């Protein structure tokens, strides 16, 4: 296909492309590579950001100005941030970027489809989840122009007060800071939620914990509803915990764009939002993703209301338990028989 331009489809990228497509984009491409269904979409590569920034810097310098800031001088950072964000949001995109994004958008949304525009920063990393949260995400956008506008908003969010302070405090060189942006169709979810490929409470790697509720996942992630909760044996498929909660509200997309919370139909409030067969499908997906990455994962999933099946929206390495790996339960013994002393030798 020759050298990649400003835009790459998920199917053409993977984790190794992270410097050019960011963490989120790379992860979505990687999931596709592992044979996992994700909502279709593309990434606006970092080179588009670079060419955009080049245009902006023709008017006034950006990077040198940020590098001159002290993270402790909040006032100066705030003034600078405000100016830079306004400047970025007002500057027209280079034609090449507009054309390529518009073409990809037209292909993605050949029938009217809402999209999400998500920041996919190159510094975004699992071990640095705090930074990942600093960039913006825009959901349920209904037009090309809105998409292009939010693309600039994502880039501009690199210059939020928090982001600048964070980079200054860690001394990251501004020249290495770039951002890719993911444009992805939204899933109108019948139900959605998260899952961990180990127990968040005991760290047990042999179980998968699934949480889900009616409607869009934002209600679960945002903590607006107590989700149903299941614990499933990763290998056996045994469902050992079924906590079905009272789910009074759900998030649904608004036709004008955005999301609203509405009451759940009375007969569904106490009903499990996932069938056992669907839970087993999630388990298969979780095992596949975990095996692909070789470590525990924290996954967002959704069930398409319009028959598109179960899709994964995101998968990140699990961070809490992975960080506190404890001593092995037992080590190989010179005399294998000495293990039985754990039973016969009494408590120590």
């Amino acid at each position, binding site marked *: 296909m020759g050298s990649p331009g400003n835009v790459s489809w998920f199917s053409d990228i993977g984790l190794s492309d992270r410097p050019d497509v960011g963490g989120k984009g790379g992860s979505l491409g990687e999931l596709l590579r592992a044979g996992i269904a994700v909502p279709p979409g593309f990434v606006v590569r970092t080179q588009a950001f670079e060419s955009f920034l080049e245009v902006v810097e023709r008017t006034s310098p950006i990077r040198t100005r940020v590098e001159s800031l002290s993270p402790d001088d909040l006032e100066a950072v705030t003034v600078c941030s405000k100016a830079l964000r306004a400047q970025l949001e007002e500057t027209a995109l280079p034609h090449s970027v507009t054309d390529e994004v518009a073409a990809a958008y037209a292909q993605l949304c050949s029938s009217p489809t809402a999209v999400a525009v998500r920041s996919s920063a190159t510094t975004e990393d699992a071990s640095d989840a705090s930074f990942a949260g600093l960039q913006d995400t825009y959901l349920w956008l209904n037009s090309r122009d809105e998409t292009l506008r939010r693309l600039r908003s994502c880039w501009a969010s690199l210059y939020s007060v928090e982001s600048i302070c964070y980079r200054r405090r860690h001394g990251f060189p501004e020249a290495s800071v770039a951002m890719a942006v993911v444009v992805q169709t939204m899933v109108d979810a019948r139900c959605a939620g998260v899952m961990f490929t180990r*127990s968040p409470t*005991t*760290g*047990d*790697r*042999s*179980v998968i914990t699934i949480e889900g509720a009616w409607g869009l996942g934002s209600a679960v992630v945002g903590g607006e509803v107590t989700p149903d909760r299941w*614990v499933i*044996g*990763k*290998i*056996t498929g*045994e*469902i*050992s915990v079924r906590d079905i909660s009272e789910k009074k509200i759900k998030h649904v997309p608004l036709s004008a764009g955005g999301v609203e919370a509405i009451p759940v139909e009375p007969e569904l409030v106490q009903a499990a939002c996932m069938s056992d067969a669907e839970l087993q499908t999630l388990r298969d997906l979780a095992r596949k993703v975990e095996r692909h990455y070789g470590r525990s994962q924290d996954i967002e999933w959704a069930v398409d209301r319009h028959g598109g099946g179960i899709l994964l929206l995101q998968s990140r390495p699990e961070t809490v338990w992975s960080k506190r*790996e404890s001593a*092995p*339960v*037992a*080590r*190989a*013994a010179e*005399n*294998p*028989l000495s*293990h*039985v*002393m*754990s*039973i*016969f*030798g*009494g*408590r120590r």
Partner: protein
Amino acid sequence: MHFPEPMSAFDMVTAEAAYCALGSSSTRVHCIPTTLGIDHRIINGRVYIGGNAVTDPAEIARRTVEFQKRAFYYYENWERLYAQWREKMLALIHDARALPELALPEFEPLEHVHAGRGVASNHYLLETYQKTLEGYFRMWHHHFEFLLLGYGAYLTFFGFCKGAFPQISDQTVARMVAGIEAEIFRPDEELRRLARCAVDLGVDAQFQEGLSVQAVIDSLQQTGEPGRAWLGELETSREPWFNINVGDGFYHYHRSWNDDLSMAFAGLPGYISRLKAGESLERPVEKLQAERRQLIEDYRELLSSDEERAAYDQMITLAHRVFPYVEGHKFYCEHWYTNLFFNKIREFGALLAAHGFFANQEDVFHLTHYELEAAIIDLMTSWSNGSPPRGPERWPEIVAQRKAAIAEWSKHDMPPALGPVPDVIDDPAIVMLWGITSETLDTWLNAGSEAAGNEIRGFAASSGVVEGPACVVRSVEEIVRLRQGDILVCQVTNPTWAPIFQKIAGAVSDIGGSMSHAAIVAREYSLPAVVGTGTATSRIKDGQRIRVDGGRGIVTILQ
């Protein structure tokens, strides 16, 4: 927990013989560091047990040195010692079968006199009785020769799995260790073989639901050669594989398939109709073995480091090494030998009944084994001197009293445990053999407060959820009442009940742990099962709709 029903006077011999052998093994033979033997008391016919823990660190250390010299030798030489064990056990069974029939003729047979035997028939009564009893006590020593070591090796692996995977279910660990070709599957396999023979010989129509064993045999005889050929095959299967009793071997009235063929015959119509529907009744041994290998490999992969994997490999290797004994010994001990033993005592019962000691042979089980010896000596003496024996004056009244006592005791539920609650239960024998932990005790202590609820908790033995009508079965005779789709509720399930597992939708028992043979068979049949509930047969009424959640160990009474 082995003794849910009040024991008759004679049956208490099992408590004496078993705890005597168990204690010898742990206190003095293998010198388990933290425990001596099991003490027991009998209250209202129920046997209660208690551990005799060693707590002094210096004493534990002293015993540890001894333990490692003894137990480790057994582990290292397991296969050789186990092969030797089977030889010893088969010899013991041979000796028990070779015991003479009991005879007290009016005159000593002439050939004994001419041969100059010089010892009269009455002496052989005592000799046979003492040999019978001696063999039973010896059998229990064999029973415990390896058992604690076997369970200990299994529990070592079990504990590791629980440490590495805090939420792994007991039954998953059991599935990783359990054997595929253990003796316990054999009686059921013989039954499947007999079903195939019936079809091959064209006598399958003779086997109909609800027919008595005698009716089936009569109609087979009428078919002539094919029916006789099938009955010949039946005889082949019976020795030794039908020498399994329908309980756990602790009550004289839990008879074997051989003593009462109705359990075995109950399974045949079902197997025959499955065969005729084109189903293969072969156990998919290779598939089961492959599944077990995969399960072990999958959990291994989840471990956090190669260091843990190496420990896992060491522990499961040892668990697999010891497990054939853990699974196999019951067939030889609790089943085959115990059947021979109780049947020999029955012969004494018949002899004494014939001499007016009591009304029928089964009454003999209301005498203790000491009293029985006294009764036999009474009869010997009376035969020798020509005076009437004293027994007929004495025993009928005592037998009647004891029968009444058992009838009364069985009307009352007894608490599952007695005495002060121990701070901690750390006795490997108690934990291993009875699955009793501090958690179990807590459940028992709280049982009273939740008695009004409709939930009964037990061990999760085989996962799956099923609802259906309960069929509460208290004795083997009742199994004919089971209909397709019923949920079996019983005191003890046992491998010998396997033939009816094809009929039922789920199983609930009062007694048993996740490694009990019932649990193993239930998993094999993918049948939801909850075992060790303690109270299911007293709380669930026949015909009630219940839900069995075998993955969580919960039984719910729905109506």
